[in-house]
Structures are given as structure tokens and as C-alpha cells.
């Protein structure tokens, strides 16, 4: 009888052959080229693209049903709520059914969006159009991640509809790199009127002195524990600079010099701003860590632990969602004024990838995405954001007086001061703000250390 290893079709030969096939298949797959759509001519850019919103008029003379794509533009959306995602999918389906330039949407969450876009750019596979966050303009523009849009915008008649601060947010070194799709403000004054009534306060504060005085009257304690804070602001490790930036704007100062080459926090304005925040903790009107909840959605506002304070549109959104009764008892007033009435404008925007193969087609798509009804449907109804352009101010959400007050706050909001190293600068500043608020450093020392740390980061 032949040796089993010498038998044709033996188990060992079968296993060897199988392993070779299993090993070879991935190699073959990796070496093959996926078929690409045939290149076709791109439609020339128009001054105003048709807007395929759900209830809007249809674009001129396009057949219904899916059209064959002449090109496909990848668009990345960040952090959309479920309702907004559904709207986008429907919008894309409608658009692709009527346009030759098709949209391929991609959805991600904010927390991983920056990593994804930077690795995508590094790998040369970034989407043609992508959503960008507040500090992204200098980072992306100085590193070749975003295309200059001035040539497109000079022919775009609607561009004047954008709020000036929202336009300015997208500018770096005199060039525009992004178009805002939503804004946010966090420096409005929120308050509970019934607690005001109990404390004998008739109107919300308009100045820093009033805010501190009212806070002392409003705070409630059980023993040493503050159960209802007389004031609230972001005081945690990574974001407390945002509270400070509102205050330094109100004090008439800046966190950077005009040329953004050096920090300017160790100044009388910076000292006034940081002292204002620290004062609430020193007065024992709020705990040093603020009133964060275990979940961002269950913060002090949504759980009724704040009588008045700096309120963001997200605070109102979460309170409305999780505590509608309390929401009815929450009101919003304009932000405080010290030297001037001001607050930081947080801007989320669309950017175009600098190496997009179809920039003109991407611009077509972008125009569709920034139409007022599309922006309202995705970002106002979905995100409770404040408007980036004036046409968005007609949204139904702003029939609510609280949200109307927040939307009005955009008029005096200032573009956020950002530099290419802002992702490093923000936490460095926050650490010093937190140290001052928690009392481990004096205000003066914290500001000195802040400028030292930021200068080191800017130097590189």
C-alpha cells in the first residue's frame, strides 16, 4: 500500500493547497484595482445652484428617478442627531435623483472627526467636502487640508447673508477657507425666574457686578454642599478656557496679539476676566468644578442645579429634552457687558478638501448644502444651533423666546481667536483657568503661566 503522504489527493496535500489559496486570495484582492466610474465632463459652476429641499421647487428640467452620475462628491457630516441624519439621507436621495453630480454622504461623530479627517488627508482619501469644527480653520488652512474658496465666493450672491463673525471665522491670512453652516454661543445668561422671585430679584443681570451679587443671593446649600449654584460656567480640565474667553471679550481684551504671534492674557483685561470667574468660587456661589453631570446631557441645567449662569444652546436643548417642566421655567437674557457686550461665536463649517479631484462639482454640492432651508432642517431643527446666515433666523425654533434670545446673541458675538496650534493651546489655557478657579494658583500666577505655556506652544 502506498505511503499516505505519497497518495495523490492526500489530506496533507489538500491542506497545503488550501492554505496556499487562502493566502493567495487576499494578495490577489489587494493587487486588483477597483473599477472607477468613467470620467465625464463636469457641469460649469453656476452662481446659484438649485436647492433640492423636501418642500422646495424642483430644479429646472431634470427627469425624475435616479440619474446617471457624471461625478460623485463625498461629503462628511459630523455629529448629526438622528433626525438630521434622516433628513440628509432624504436630501441626498432627492439630489441624486435630479442632479448629475451625485453626493456620497458619510457620517461620523464629533469626537473622532478630527482624527478621521487628518488621517484621511494624510492618506490622500479625504472627502471632497467635510464638516469642520470651531478651531479647524487655521489648522487645516496652514497644513493644506482646505481649499481657498474666495474665487467661488466672489460669484456667490448669497455670501453677504452670513453674519460677519461667521464669515471671519473662516478666514486665515486674508483668505477664506470655509463656509459656516451653524453657530453657537455659550455666553448668554440663563436663569430660573421662580428662584429669582424667591430671592427678590426682578431682572436678570447685565453687568459682572450684578451677576456676582445675584449669585450670592441665589445659591442654596445643604451644609457645605451647594445644591443649587448661584452661577455656573464650564470649569473642567479641557474646556474651561471657553468661559474665560467670553469674559476676556467682555473685558475688551484678547487672548492673542493681533498678528496671533503671542499670547496676551497676562494683561489687565485678562486679570479682570479671570478674577470675575474665580470670584464666584471665592464667594461660594458655585462649586469649583461647576455642575457637570455624569453625562453631558444631564448637566446642572437639565437637573435643576443652577439658578443662573452662563448658558449654552446645548444646555437649553438638553433641558428641553430631559426636563421639559424645568425648561418652561428657564429663561435666557443677553450676555453680560463689562467694557462691551460680547461673547465668543462657535462656528461649525464646511470645508473643501484642497486636493479634491472635482472642486467645481464640490462647489455645486456645497451651494446646495448651504441653502437656508437645508441648513435650518439639518442644524437648527436637529442641533438647536444658532444661525450662521440671516436667512436661518426665520426658523420656527426661534419662535421660542429663549432660542430667539440665543439667536439674537449672534449679532454681537465675536469670531473665536484661533491659531494653527489651537488644539494644544486650548487645553493649556484651560489648565491654568482651572488652577485659578480651584485656588491652587493665584489669578496673576495662572495668567503668567498661561502666557508662558502658550508662547512655548506657538514657538513650536
Amino acid at each position: 500500500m502506498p505511503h499516505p503522504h505519497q497518495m495523490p489527493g492526500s489530506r496533507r496535500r489538500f491542506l497545503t493547497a488550501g492554505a496556499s489559496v487562502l493566502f493567495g486570495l487576499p494578495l490577489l484582492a489587494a493587487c486588483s484595482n477597483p473599477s472607477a466610474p468613467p470620467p465625464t465632463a463636469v457641469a460649469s459652476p453656476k452662481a446659484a445652484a438649485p436647492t433640492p429641499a423636501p418642500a422646495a421647487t424642483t430644479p429646472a428640467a431634470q427627469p425624475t428617478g435616479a440619474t446617471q452620475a457624471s461625478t460623485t462628491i463625498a461629503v462628511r457630516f459630523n455629529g448629526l442627531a438622528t433626525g438630521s441624519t434622516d433628513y440628509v439621507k432624504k436630501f441626498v436621495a432627492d439630489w441624486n435623483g435630479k442632479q448629475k453630480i451625485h453626493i456620497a454622504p458619510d457620517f461620523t461623530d464629533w469626537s473622532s472627526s478630527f482624527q478621521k479627517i487628518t488621517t484621511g488627508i494624510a492618506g490622500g482619501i479625504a472627502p471632497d467636502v467635510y464638516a469642520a469644527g470651531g478651531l479647524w480653520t487655521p489648522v487645516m488652512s496652514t497644513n493644506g487640508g482646505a481649499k481657498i474658496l474666495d474665487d467661488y465666493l466672489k460669484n456667490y450672491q448669497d455670501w453677504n447673508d452670513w453674519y460677519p463673525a461667521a464669515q471671519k471665522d473662516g478666514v486665515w491670512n486674508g483668505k477664506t477657507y470655509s463656509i459656516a453652516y451653524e453657530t453657537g454661543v455659550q455666553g448668554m445668561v440663563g436663569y430660573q425666574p421662580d428662584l429669582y422671585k424667591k430671592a427678590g430679584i426682578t431682572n436678570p443681570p447685565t453687568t459682572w457686578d450684578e451677576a456676582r451679587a445675584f449669585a450670592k443671593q441665589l445659591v442654596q446649600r445643604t451644609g457645605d454642599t451647594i445644591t443649587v449654584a448661584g452661577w455656573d460656567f464650564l470649569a473642567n480640565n479641557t474646556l474651561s478656557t471657553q468661559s474665560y474667553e467670553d469674559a476676556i471679550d467682555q473685558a475688551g481684551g484678547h487672548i492673542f496679539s493681533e498678528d496671533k504671534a503671542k499670547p496676551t492674557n497676562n494683561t489687565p483685561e485678562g486679570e479682570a476676566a479671570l478674577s470675575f470667574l474665580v470670584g464666584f468660587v471665592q464667594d461660594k456661589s458655585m462649586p469649583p468644578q461647576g455642575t457637570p453631570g455624569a453625562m453631558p446631557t444631564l448637566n446642572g441645567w437639565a437637573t435643576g442645579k443652577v439658578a443662573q449662569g452662563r448658558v449654552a444652546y446645548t444646555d437649553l436643548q438638553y433641558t428641553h429634552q430631559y426636563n421639559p417642566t424645568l425648561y418652561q421655567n428657564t429663561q435666557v437674557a443677553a450676555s453680560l457687558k463689562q467694557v462691551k457686550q460680547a461673547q465668543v461665536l462657535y462656528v461649525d463649517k464646511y470645508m473643501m478638501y484642497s486636493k479634491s479631484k472635482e472642486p467645481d462639482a464640490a462647489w455645486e454640492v456645497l451651494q446646495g448644502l448651504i441653502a437656508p432651508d437645508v441648513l435650518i432642517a439639518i442644524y437648527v431643527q436637529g442641533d438647536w444651533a444658532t444661525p450662521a446666515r440671516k436667512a436661518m433666523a426665520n426658523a420656527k425654533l426661534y419662535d421660542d423666546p429663549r432660542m430667539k434670545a440665543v439667536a439674537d446673541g449672534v449679532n454681537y458675538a465675536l469670531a473665536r481667536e484661533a491659531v494653527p496650534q489651537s488644539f494644544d493651546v486650548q487645553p493649556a489655557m484651560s489648565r491654568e483657568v482651572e488652577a485659578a478657579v480651584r485656588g491652587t494658583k493665584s489669578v496673576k500666577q495662572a495668567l503668567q503661566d498661561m502666557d508662558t505655556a502658550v508662547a512655548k506652544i506657538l514657538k513650536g
Partner: protein
Amino acid sequence: MTGAESDAAVARGRAGTVRSRRRLIYQQKYAGYVFIAPSLIFLFVFVVLPIFAALYLSFTQYNLLKPPKLIGLDNYQALLTDDRFVHSIVNTLVFALGTIPTGTALALLFALFVNQKIRGITFFRTAFYMPVVTSFVAVSLIWLLLYDPSVGVLNYLLQLVGLPRSEWLQSPQTSLLSIIIFTVWKNIGYNMVIYLAGLQGIPDHLYEAAEIDGAGDWEKFWSVTVPLLQPTTFFVVVVWFIGALQMFVQVLILTQGGPLDTTITVVYLVYSNAFEYLKLGYAAAMSFVLFIFIGLITYLNTRILSYDTAY
């Protein structure tokens, strides 16, 4: 066929057999390489190559968006003067020294308990092991709620027994301790199972001999159980130390390094520098320093904990 022809035929047959055996041996070796090739390629591409790529990056300034720029030892020099890096090493060591002795002792205690031959003990073995198989992110989120100073269950229980509330994760004094408690809870089941295996490997006759010599439970534990568990303890401590020095998920979910950098660890700092500040070269340098640090600590552990117990 003549005898010579027959001998030649036999010789040819034997030579052919030798050749076919050599071919077979060669084929078997070749088959072996083919079978391990996918794993080797995977290891090379996803483990070895990235290590060398990171080593190269540690000598560069690189932000993902532009090509890396060689800067020599600047990143390593900057580490020497980076207070946050030094602070993160201290925090990481404190975390390791806080979790390992407590966790090891508790794991042994739990193992002794579940090693009993009593009805229902399987339920306890399963219950103690459950945290190990649960997602780190999921349990971290649950513990965020437990640790909430206002509505968290832990403060409620403290108040029930008349103790003062704690700020837990929100106070610089208790934040790292809170993470230590959570980590010990999460990992105890894993080490309990390892100790259980060790306990079940101790021969019964040693306990019988100790009983004959008049040893009580305590003496049996210290004189028989603990010495014979030295190899297990060695493994548990060394492996846990290596894991503790790389602590990351808890910080990312629970505290993001705060408050006041009291919970920042080396790996979290590497992550922040790489993916938030876009300083990948600097982060790579930090990770190599951590690698050397872990190597040194592991070497020290093996020297201190080396065992030679035999009965």
C-alpha cells in the same frame, strides 16, 4: 533479470526512496511555512513595521497633514523638561502601586473563596468574572454615574451609613483613587481565575502532611498555599504591572486627565499629543520612553519576585 541488475534495481529503488523522503521532508517544512505565513505577515505588517515606523517618527516633527521633518533628538530632549510628562509618570506609578497589591490580595482571597466545594459556588465564580468580560467603555460609563457626586449610588450609600459625601472623580484628592477602585473591580475576576488554577494545582497531600504536623488553617495558608502560589503571583504581578503602566481607557472615559492633571497617565498623554495636538513625533518619542520604562520595571519585578519554591 540478473543478480547485478537486480541489485542495481534495488539500489535505484533505495535511492528513489531516499529522494522521495527528502522531498517529503522539504514539502513538510514548506507546508509549515505556508501555514504560519499569514500570521507572520500579519505580525510583521501590524506590529513590527509600526514599531519601526514609530521609532523613525520619534526623530521627526510630524502632524499627519505634512510630511515628517527630521529633527534629531529634539523630541527626547523636550521630554526631559516636560513637567506634564514627568507628572504623568508619577501618576502612572501611583496607579500601578495602588491597584496591584490590593488587586492581587483581593484576587487571592476571592480565589480561596470560590475554590470551596460548596453548592452554588459556580454562580460566584461567574459573578466575580463578569466585570472582566464586560466592555471597558460600557462599565466606565456606568461607573461615571455611580461616581456622580449628586445622584450617584456610591454617595447615597455613604450617606446611608453616616459618612460624608465624596466628590470622587471631580476632586483632585479623590480622582485617582476613584480610578484605582474601578480598575481593581474590573480586573479582579481575571486574576482570581489565574489564582484558582494555581490553587487547584497544589497537591492535597501537602495539606494533609501539614495537618498531620499540627498546622492550623492559617499556618497551612502561609506555609503551603502562599509559597506554592509564588509562580502564579509572579505572573499576576508582572502582567498586571505591564497593563497598569499602560492605563488609558479609564482616563479617557472618566476624567480626561483631570481635574488639574491628577489622573493624567503616560499613555493618555501620548494619545493627546498624537491625536489632539497633532504632535505625532513627540508622542512617538514618549511611547518609546514608556517602552523602555516598562522594560526596566518588568526586569526589576522579575529580579524581586523570582521564586525557587519546591516541596
